[in-house]
Protein backbone atom coordinates (compact mmCIF):
# COMPACT_ATOMS: atom_id res chain seq x y z
CA UNK A 1 0.00 0.00 0.00
CA UNK A 2 2.97 2.30 0.13
CA UNK A 3 2.94 2.85 -3.59
CA UNK A 4 2.99 6.53 -4.52
CA UNK A 5 0.10 7.15 -6.87
CA UNK A 6 0.86 10.69 -7.82
CA UNK A 7 3.66 13.05 -7.03
CA UNK A 8 4.11 16.67 -8.05
CA UNK A 9 7.35 18.57 -7.71
CA UNK A 10 7.26 22.27 -8.39
CA UNK A 11 4.35 22.02 -10.79
CA UNK A 12 3.30 25.25 -12.47
CA UNK A 13 0.85 26.26 -15.11
CA UNK A 14 -0.29 29.52 -16.74
CA UNK A 15 -3.71 30.21 -18.17
CA UNK A 16 -4.26 33.15 -20.50
CA UNK A 17 -0.86 34.48 -19.49
CA UNK A 18 -1.49 34.50 -15.76
CA UNK A 19 0.21 32.03 -13.41
CA UNK A 20 -2.55 29.86 -11.98
CA UNK A 21 -0.38 27.21 -10.36
CA UNK A 22 3.10 28.01 -9.10
CA UNK A 23 5.45 25.32 -7.86
CA UNK A 24 2.95 22.97 -6.31
CA UNK A 25 4.57 19.96 -4.65
CA UNK A 26 3.01 17.03 -2.87
CA UNK A 27 2.75 13.28 -3.09
CA UNK A 28 -0.07 10.90 -2.48
CA UNK A 29 0.22 7.25 -1.46
CA UNK A 30 -2.27 4.52 -2.19
CA UNK A 31 -5.13 4.30 0.28
CA UNK A 32 -4.94 7.94 1.24
CA UNK A 33 -6.83 11.06 0.34
CA UNK A 34 -5.77 14.67 0.01
CA UNK A 35 -8.37 17.38 0.40
CA UNK A 36 -7.55 20.64 -1.36
CA UNK A 37 -9.30 23.73 -0.14
CA UNK A 38 -8.92 27.35 -1.07
CA UNK A 39 -10.73 30.48 -2.13
CA UNK A 40 -12.64 30.77 -5.40
CA UNK A 41 -10.18 31.10 -8.22
CA UNK A 42 -7.29 29.74 -6.18
CA UNK A 43 -6.58 27.09 -8.82
CA UNK A 44 -8.08 23.93 -7.35
CA UNK A 45 -9.87 22.84 -10.52
CA UNK A 46 -6.81 23.65 -12.58
CA UNK A 47 -4.64 21.54 -10.30
CA UNK A 48 -6.95 18.57 -10.68
CA UNK A 49 -7.01 18.97 -14.44
CA UNK A 50 -3.25 19.05 -14.61
CA UNK A 51 -2.99 15.97 -12.41
CA UNK A 52 -5.47 14.21 -14.68
CA UNK A 53 -3.60 15.13 -17.84
CA UNK A 54 -6.48 17.18 -19.19
CA UNK A 55 -4.29 20.24 -19.09
CA UNK A 56 -0.57 20.23 -19.62
CA UNK A 57 1.88 21.91 -17.27
CA UNK A 58 4.67 24.31 -17.91
CA UNK A 59 7.15 23.78 -15.12
CA UNK A 60 8.11 21.12 -12.62
CA UNK A 61 7.66 17.39 -12.70
CA UNK A 62 4.54 15.27 -12.47
CA UNK A 63 4.87 11.56 -11.68
CA UNK A 64 1.82 9.34 -11.98
CA UNK A 65 1.88 5.70 -10.89
CA UNK A 66 5.65 5.90 -10.69
CA UNK A 67 6.33 7.16 -14.20
CA UNK A 68 6.75 10.76 -15.30
CA UNK A 69 3.79 12.21 -17.22
CA UNK A 70 4.64 14.32 -20.21
CA UNK A 71 4.18 18.07 -19.98
CA UNK A 72 1.66 18.23 -22.82
CA UNK A 73 -0.88 16.48 -20.66
CA UNK A 74 -1.73 12.89 -21.55
CA UNK A 75 -4.73 11.39 -19.81
CA UNK A 76 -4.43 7.97 -18.25
CA UNK A 77 -7.12 5.31 -18.03
CA UNK A 78 -6.30 4.57 -14.41
CA UNK A 79 -7.46 8.02 -13.38
CA UNK A 80 -11.10 8.82 -12.69
CA UNK A 81 -12.01 12.49 -12.94
CA UNK A 82 -15.20 14.08 -11.69
CA UNK A 83 -15.40 17.76 -12.55
CA UNK A 84 -17.83 20.63 -12.60
CA UNK A 85 -19.43 19.13 -15.71
CA UNK A 86 -20.80 15.60 -16.03
CA UNK A 87 -18.80 14.62 -19.18
CA UNK A 88 -21.82 12.79 -20.57
CA UNK A 89 -24.03 13.34 -23.61
CA UNK A 90 -27.26 15.08 -22.61
CA UNK A 91 -29.14 13.43 -25.45
CA UNK A 92 -28.27 9.90 -24.48
CA UNK A 93 -29.75 8.09 -21.53
CA UNK A 94 -27.65 7.35 -18.48
CA UNK A 95 -27.50 3.66 -19.41
CA UNK A 96 -26.31 4.50 -22.92
CA UNK A 97 -23.70 6.91 -21.63
CA UNK A 98 -22.40 4.35 -19.19
CA UNK A 99 -22.34 1.73 -21.89
CA UNK A 100 -20.20 4.01 -24.00
CA UNK A 101 -17.79 4.63 -21.14
CA UNK A 102 -17.78 0.96 -20.28
CA UNK A 103 -16.71 0.10 -23.81
CA UNK A 104 -14.08 2.80 -23.87
CA UNK A 105 -12.57 1.53 -20.64
CA UNK A 106 -13.02 -2.08 -21.79
CA UNK A 107 -15.03 -3.08 -18.79
CA UNK A 108 -16.06 -6.71 -18.96
CA UNK A 109 -19.62 -7.59 -18.13
CA UNK A 110 -20.74 -4.02 -18.75
CA UNK A 111 -24.48 -4.54 -18.48
CA UNK A 112 -24.21 -6.02 -15.05
CA UNK A 113 -21.77 -3.39 -13.78
CA UNK A 114 -24.01 -0.63 -15.05
CA UNK A 115 -26.85 -2.16 -13.16
CA UNK A 116 -24.76 -2.19 -10.00
CA UNK A 117 -23.50 1.37 -10.24
CA UNK A 118 -26.83 2.99 -11.06
CA UNK A 119 -28.30 1.17 -8.10
CA UNK A 120 -25.48 2.49 -5.92
CA UNK A 121 -26.26 6.10 -6.75
CA UNK A 122 -29.98 5.45 -6.59
CA UNK A 123 -30.77 6.23 -10.21
CA UNK A 124 -32.04 2.80 -11.24
CA UNK A 125 -35.49 4.14 -12.05
CA UNK A 126 -34.05 6.89 -14.22
CA UNK A 127 -31.37 5.06 -16.13
CA UNK A 128 -33.37 5.00 -19.37
CA UNK A 129 -34.08 8.71 -19.35
CA UNK A 130 -31.92 11.15 -21.39
CA UNK A 131 -29.58 13.10 -19.13
CA UNK A 132 -30.93 16.44 -20.30
CA UNK A 133 -34.05 15.70 -18.27
CA UNK A 134 -32.11 15.21 -15.07
CA UNK A 135 -32.09 17.74 -12.28
CA UNK A 136 -28.78 19.24 -11.19
CA UNK A 137 -28.25 16.77 -8.37
CA UNK A 138 -29.32 13.80 -10.46
CA UNK A 139 -26.70 14.82 -12.98
CA UNK A 140 -24.08 14.85 -10.25
CA UNK A 141 -25.16 11.37 -9.19
CA UNK A 142 -24.86 10.29 -12.81
CA UNK A 143 -21.31 11.62 -12.85
CA UNK A 144 -20.58 9.51 -9.77
CA UNK A 145 -22.01 6.48 -11.54
CA UNK A 146 -19.58 7.05 -14.39
CA UNK A 147 -16.72 7.36 -11.96
CA UNK A 148 -17.64 4.10 -10.26
CA UNK A 149 -18.05 2.29 -13.54
CA UNK A 150 -14.56 2.85 -14.84
CA UNK A 151 -12.98 1.51 -11.69
CA UNK A 152 -9.98 3.82 -11.57
CA UNK A 153 -7.15 3.74 -9.05
CA UNK A 154 -6.77 7.44 -8.54
CA UNK A 155 -9.85 9.62 -8.15
CA UNK A 156 -9.72 13.33 -8.84
CA UNK A 157 -12.90 14.79 -7.42
CA UNK A 158 -13.71 18.44 -8.01
CA UNK A 159 -16.43 19.44 -5.56
CA UNK A 160 -17.99 16.00 -5.76
CA UNK A 161 -20.82 16.86 -3.40
CA UNK A 162 -22.03 19.94 -5.23
CA UNK A 163 -25.78 19.77 -5.72
CA UNK A 164 -26.23 16.50 -3.87
CA UNK A 165 -28.88 16.12 -1.20
CA UNK A 166 -27.87 14.81 2.25
CA UNK A 167 -28.75 11.30 1.19
CA UNK A 168 -26.57 11.58 -1.88
CA UNK A 169 -23.70 13.01 0.14
CA UNK A 170 -23.87 10.11 2.53
CA UNK A 171 -23.92 7.53 -0.25
CA UNK A 172 -21.00 9.05 -2.09
CA UNK A 173 -18.97 9.60 1.07
CA UNK A 174 -19.35 5.89 1.70
CA UNK A 175 -18.21 5.15 -1.83
CA UNK A 176 -15.11 7.27 -1.35
CA UNK A 177 -14.33 5.54 1.90
CA UNK A 178 -14.63 2.12 0.28
CA UNK A 179 -12.39 3.24 -2.54
CA UNK A 180 -9.69 4.32 -0.11
CA UNK A 181 -10.06 1.15 1.91
CA UNK A 182 -9.45 -0.87 -1.24
CA UNK A 183 -6.16 0.91 -1.75
CA UNK A 184 -7.23 3.63 -4.14
CA UNK A 185 -6.20 7.23 -3.74
CA UNK A 186 -8.12 10.48 -4.07
CA UNK A 187 -7.51 14.18 -4.44
CA UNK A 188 -10.69 16.01 -3.50
CA UNK A 189 -11.58 19.69 -3.54
CA UNK A 190 -14.32 21.11 -1.40
CA UNK A 191 -15.36 24.37 0.20
CA UNK A 192 -16.70 22.75 3.38
CA UNK A 193 -14.27 22.19 6.20
CA UNK A 194 -16.53 19.59 7.78
CA UNK A 195 -16.41 17.46 4.64
CA UNK A 196 -12.64 17.81 4.54
CA UNK A 197 -12.27 16.63 8.10
CA UNK A 198 -14.60 13.75 7.57
CA UNK A 199 -12.97 12.32 4.49
CA UNK A 200 -9.40 13.53 4.20
CA UNK A 201 -6.17 12.07 5.50
CA UNK A 202 -4.44 15.29 4.65
CA UNK A 203 -5.69 18.75 3.90
CA UNK A 204 -3.95 21.46 1.94
CA UNK A 205 -4.97 25.02 1.27
CA UNK A 206 -4.24 26.53 -2.10
CA UNK A 207 -3.69 30.27 -2.13
CA UNK A 208 -3.35 31.93 -5.53
CA UNK A 209 -1.82 28.81 -7.00
CA UNK A 210 0.52 27.96 -4.13
CA UNK A 211 0.07 25.22 -1.58
CA UNK A 212 0.18 27.45 1.45
CA UNK A 213 -1.00 25.41 4.41
CA UNK A 214 -0.77 21.75 4.97
CA UNK A 215 -2.17 19.59 7.70
CA UNK A 216 -2.39 15.91 8.52
CA UNK A 217 -5.94 15.29 9.61
CA UNK A 218 -6.96 13.13 12.54
CA UNK A 219 -7.81 10.90 9.64
CA UNK A 220 -9.99 8.35 11.34
CA UNK A 221 -12.61 9.00 8.68
CA UNK A 222 -15.24 9.13 11.40
CA UNK A 223 -18.75 7.85 10.91
CA UNK A 224 -21.09 9.85 8.77
CA UNK A 225 -22.94 12.75 10.31
CA UNK A 226 -26.71 12.51 10.16
CA UNK A 227 -28.45 14.54 7.54
Amino acid at each position, binding site marked *: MDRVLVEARGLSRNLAGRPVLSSVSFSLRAGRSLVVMGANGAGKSTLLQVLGG*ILGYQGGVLMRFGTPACAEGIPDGRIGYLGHKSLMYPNLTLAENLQLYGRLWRIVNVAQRIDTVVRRVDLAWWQHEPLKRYSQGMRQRAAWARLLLIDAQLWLLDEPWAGLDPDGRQITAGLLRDHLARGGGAVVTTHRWEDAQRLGHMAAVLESGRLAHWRELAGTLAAEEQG
Partner: protein
Amino acid sequence: MQKIWTLFVKDMRLEARQKDMGFLMLAFAMMETLVFGFALDSGGRMQTDEVAGILWMGFLFAGMLGIVRLFGRETAEDVMVGMAMAPGGRLPVVMAKMAVAWVFCAATASIATSVDVAVFQVPGTRVSVIVVLVMLLGALGLASVGTLLSGLSLNLSGHEVLLPVLTMPFLVPVAIAGMEATGAAWRGGRPWPWIHALMAYDLIFMVLPLLLYEFLWEV
Protein backbone atom coordinates in the same frame (compact mmCIF):
# COMPACT_ATOMS: atom_id res chain seq x y z
CA MET B 1 -8.98 0.37 -33.14
CA GLN B 2 -11.58 -0.67 -30.64
CA LYS B 3 -11.75 2.86 -29.33
CA ILE B 4 -12.29 4.23 -32.82
CA TRP B 5 -15.07 1.76 -33.40
CA THR B 6 -16.73 2.50 -30.07
CA LEU B 7 -16.72 6.21 -30.74
CA PHE B 8 -17.93 5.67 -34.28
CA VAL B 9 -20.87 3.66 -33.00
CA LYS B 10 -21.54 6.35 -30.41
CA ASP B 11 -21.82 9.03 -33.07
CA MET B 12 -24.05 6.85 -35.18
CA ARG B 13 -26.29 6.26 -32.21
CA LEU B 14 -26.50 9.96 -31.50
CA GLU B 15 -27.44 10.47 -35.11
CA ALA B 16 -30.10 7.79 -34.90
CA ARG B 17 -31.47 9.55 -31.87
CA GLN B 18 -31.55 13.06 -33.27
CA LYS B 19 -31.33 12.58 -37.02
CA ASP B 20 -30.23 16.18 -37.18
CA MET B 21 -27.00 15.90 -39.08
CA GLY B 22 -28.25 13.56 -41.77
CA PHE B 23 -31.44 15.50 -42.23
CA LEU B 24 -29.52 18.76 -42.39
CA MET B 25 -27.06 17.58 -44.99
CA LEU B 26 -29.66 15.94 -47.16
CA ALA B 27 -32.07 18.84 -46.92
CA PHE B 28 -29.22 21.10 -47.90
CA ALA B 29 -28.26 19.11 -50.94
CA MET B 30 -31.88 18.69 -52.05
CA MET B 31 -32.82 22.32 -51.60
CA GLU B 32 -29.81 23.33 -53.55
CA THR B 33 -30.91 21.17 -56.43
CA LEU B 34 -34.34 22.70 -56.17
CA VAL B 35 -33.18 26.30 -56.19
CA PHE B 36 -30.72 25.74 -58.96
CA GLY B 37 -33.10 23.74 -61.00
CA PHE B 38 -35.57 26.54 -60.75
CA ALA B 39 -32.97 29.21 -61.37
CA LEU B 40 -31.34 27.80 -64.42
CA ASP B 41 -34.01 25.75 -66.08
CA SER B 42 -35.83 28.58 -67.79
CA GLY B 43 -32.66 29.71 -69.50
CA GLY B 44 -32.29 26.49 -71.43
CA ARG B 45 -30.47 23.18 -71.02
CA MET B 46 -27.69 22.95 -68.54
CA GLN B 47 -24.18 21.95 -69.39
CA THR B 48 -22.32 19.08 -67.81
CA ASP B 49 -19.88 21.48 -66.22
CA GLU B 50 -22.63 23.44 -64.62
CA VAL B 51 -24.19 20.37 -63.10
CA ALA B 52 -20.81 19.36 -61.74
CA GLY B 53 -20.36 22.84 -60.30
CA ILE B 54 -23.74 22.82 -58.61
CA LEU B 55 -23.13 19.37 -57.24
CA TRP B 56 -19.80 20.22 -55.67
CA MET B 57 -20.93 23.51 -54.29
CA GLY B 58 -23.66 21.60 -52.57
CA PHE B 59 -21.22 19.07 -51.09
CA LEU B 60 -18.91 21.79 -49.96
CA PHE B 61 -21.62 23.55 -47.99
CA ALA B 62 -23.43 20.47 -46.81
CA GLY B 63 -20.17 18.92 -45.70
CA MET B 64 -19.11 22.01 -43.84
CA LEU B 65 -22.42 22.32 -42.08
CA GLY B 66 -22.45 18.67 -41.20
CA ILE B 67 -18.97 18.73 -39.73
CA VAL B 68 -19.68 21.82 -37.67
CA ARG B 69 -22.72 20.07 -36.28
CA LEU B 70 -20.79 16.87 -35.70
CA PHE B 71 -18.40 18.71 -33.43
CA GLY B 72 -21.13 20.83 -31.96
CA ARG B 73 -22.39 17.72 -30.24
CA GLU B 74 -19.23 17.57 -28.21
CA THR B 75 -19.43 20.99 -26.66
CA ALA B 76 -22.07 20.31 -24.03
CA GLU B 77 -20.98 19.05 -20.62
CA ASP B 78 -17.32 18.80 -21.68
CA VAL B 79 -17.88 15.33 -23.09
CA MET B 80 -14.71 15.57 -25.13
CA VAL B 81 -12.70 15.50 -21.90
CA GLY B 82 -14.33 12.22 -21.02
CA MET B 83 -13.56 10.72 -24.41
CA ALA B 84 -9.97 11.91 -24.38
CA MET B 85 -9.36 10.51 -20.89
CA ALA B 86 -10.25 6.99 -21.94
CA PRO B 87 -7.42 4.52 -22.46
CA GLY B 88 -5.94 4.80 -25.91
CA GLY B 89 -5.31 8.52 -25.92
CA ARG B 90 -6.65 11.19 -28.18
CA LEU B 91 -5.77 9.95 -31.61
CA PRO B 92 -8.73 7.55 -31.87
CA VAL B 93 -11.07 10.40 -31.03
CA VAL B 94 -9.86 12.30 -34.08
CA MET B 95 -9.94 9.20 -36.24
CA ALA B 96 -13.48 8.31 -35.24
CA LYS B 97 -14.71 11.78 -36.01
CA MET B 98 -13.02 11.62 -39.37
CA ALA B 99 -14.67 8.30 -40.13
CA VAL B 100 -18.11 9.57 -39.21
CA ALA B 101 -17.63 12.71 -41.24
CA TRP B 102 -16.49 10.65 -44.19
CA VAL B 103 -19.50 8.34 -44.05
CA PHE B 104 -21.88 11.29 -43.97
CA CYS B 105 -20.12 13.21 -46.71
CA ALA B 106 -19.99 10.14 -48.91
CA ALA B 107 -23.66 9.34 -48.30
CA THR B 108 -24.71 12.88 -49.10
CA ALA B 109 -22.52 12.90 -52.16
CA SER B 110 -23.90 9.68 -53.56
CA ILE B 111 -27.53 10.55 -52.95
CA ALA B 112 -27.19 14.07 -54.29
CA THR B 113 -25.33 12.89 -57.35
CA SER B 114 -27.93 10.31 -58.25
CA VAL B 115 -30.76 12.78 -57.77
CA ASP B 116 -29.08 15.53 -59.71
CA VAL B 117 -28.15 13.31 -62.59
CA ALA B 118 -31.74 12.10 -62.77
CA VAL B 119 -33.29 15.50 -62.37
CA PHE B 120 -31.13 17.61 -64.61
CA GLN B 121 -31.00 14.99 -67.34
CA VAL B 122 -27.88 16.45 -68.82
CA PRO B 123 -26.80 14.44 -71.79
CA GLY B 124 -23.68 12.45 -71.13
CA THR B 125 -23.83 12.51 -67.34
CA ARG B 126 -23.55 8.92 -66.39
CA VAL B 127 -22.41 7.43 -63.15
CA SER B 128 -19.19 5.60 -63.78
CA VAL B 129 -16.59 4.06 -61.53
CA ILE B 130 -14.47 7.15 -61.93
CA VAL B 131 -17.24 9.43 -60.75
CA VAL B 132 -17.79 7.25 -57.71
CA LEU B 133 -14.06 7.35 -57.00
CA VAL B 134 -14.05 11.13 -57.27
CA MET B 135 -16.98 11.35 -54.90
CA LEU B 136 -15.31 9.15 -52.31
CA LEU B 137 -12.04 11.05 -52.57
CA GLY B 138 -13.83 14.36 -52.33
CA ALA B 139 -15.79 13.18 -49.30
CA LEU B 140 -12.52 12.08 -47.73
CA GLY B 141 -11.04 15.49 -48.39
CA LEU B 142 -13.97 17.29 -46.82
CA ALA B 143 -13.90 14.95 -43.85
CA SER B 144 -10.18 15.18 -43.16
CA VAL B 145 -9.84 18.93 -43.59
CA GLY B 146 -12.99 19.53 -41.60
CA THR B 147 -11.92 17.24 -38.79
CA LEU B 148 -8.48 18.76 -38.54
CA LEU B 149 -9.76 22.29 -38.30
CA SER B 150 -12.80 21.64 -36.17
CA GLY B 151 -10.78 19.48 -33.83
CA LEU B 152 -8.26 22.24 -33.54
CA SER B 153 -10.95 24.71 -32.61
CA LEU B 154 -12.46 22.50 -29.99
CA ASN B 155 -10.22 22.88 -27.03
CA LEU B 156 -11.02 20.94 -24.00
CA SER B 157 -11.69 23.55 -21.39
CA GLY B 158 -13.05 26.42 -23.44
CA HIS B 159 -16.12 25.38 -25.34
CA GLU B 160 -15.99 27.24 -28.54
CA VAL B 161 -16.32 26.39 -32.15
CA LEU B 162 -14.70 29.27 -33.89
CA LEU B 163 -12.46 27.81 -36.52
CA PRO B 164 -15.13 26.23 -38.71
CA VAL B 165 -15.26 29.60 -40.34
CA LEU B 166 -11.73 29.00 -41.45
CA THR B 167 -12.55 25.61 -42.85
CA MET B 168 -14.04 27.02 -45.98
CA PRO B 169 -10.94 28.31 -47.73
CA PHE B 170 -9.29 24.97 -47.06
CA LEU B 171 -12.21 23.13 -48.58
CA VAL B 172 -12.40 25.18 -51.72
CA PRO B 173 -9.53 23.34 -53.42
CA VAL B 174 -11.28 20.05 -52.76
CA ALA B 175 -14.45 21.37 -54.30
CA ILE B 176 -12.67 22.74 -57.35
CA ALA B 177 -10.69 19.59 -57.99
CA GLY B 178 -13.74 17.42 -57.45
CA MET B 179 -15.82 19.53 -59.75
CA GLU B 180 -13.27 19.54 -62.53
CA ALA B 181 -12.73 15.81 -62.24
CA THR B 182 -16.45 15.06 -62.31
CA GLY B 183 -17.00 17.37 -65.22
CA ALA B 184 -14.12 15.83 -67.13
CA ALA B 185 -15.34 12.31 -66.43
CA TRP B 186 -18.79 13.17 -67.68
CA ARG B 187 -17.54 14.99 -70.72
CA GLY B 188 -15.21 12.11 -71.47
CA GLY B 189 -12.20 14.37 -70.85
CA ARG B 190 -9.13 13.69 -68.76
CA PRO B 191 -10.07 13.55 -65.08
CA TRP B 192 -6.81 12.00 -63.87
CA PRO B 193 -4.76 15.12 -63.19
CA TRP B 194 -7.56 16.39 -60.97
CA ILE B 195 -7.98 13.05 -59.27
CA HIS B 196 -4.29 12.96 -58.48
CA ALA B 197 -4.49 16.46 -57.05
CA LEU B 198 -7.41 15.35 -54.92
CA MET B 199 -5.50 12.33 -53.69
CA ALA B 200 -2.48 14.40 -52.78
CA TYR B 201 -4.59 16.94 -50.89
CA ASP B 202 -6.45 14.18 -49.06
CA LEU B 203 -3.20 12.52 -48.13
CA ILE B 204 -1.73 15.70 -46.70
CA PHE B 205 -4.76 16.37 -44.55
CA MET B 206 -4.98 12.76 -43.47
CA VAL B 207 -1.38 12.66 -42.34
CA LEU B 208 -1.29 16.10 -40.78
CA PRO B 209 -3.69 15.25 -37.95
CA LEU B 210 -1.78 12.04 -37.29
CA LEU B 211 1.41 14.04 -36.89
CA LEU B 212 -0.13 16.86 -34.97
CA TYR B 213 -2.78 15.14 -32.97
CA GLU B 214 -1.09 15.53 -29.63
CA PHE B 215 -1.01 19.27 -30.12
CA LEU B 216 -4.54 19.30 -31.39
CA TRP B 217 -6.15 19.16 -28.00
CA GLU B 218 -3.51 20.18 -25.61
CA VAL B 219 -4.76 23.23 -23.81
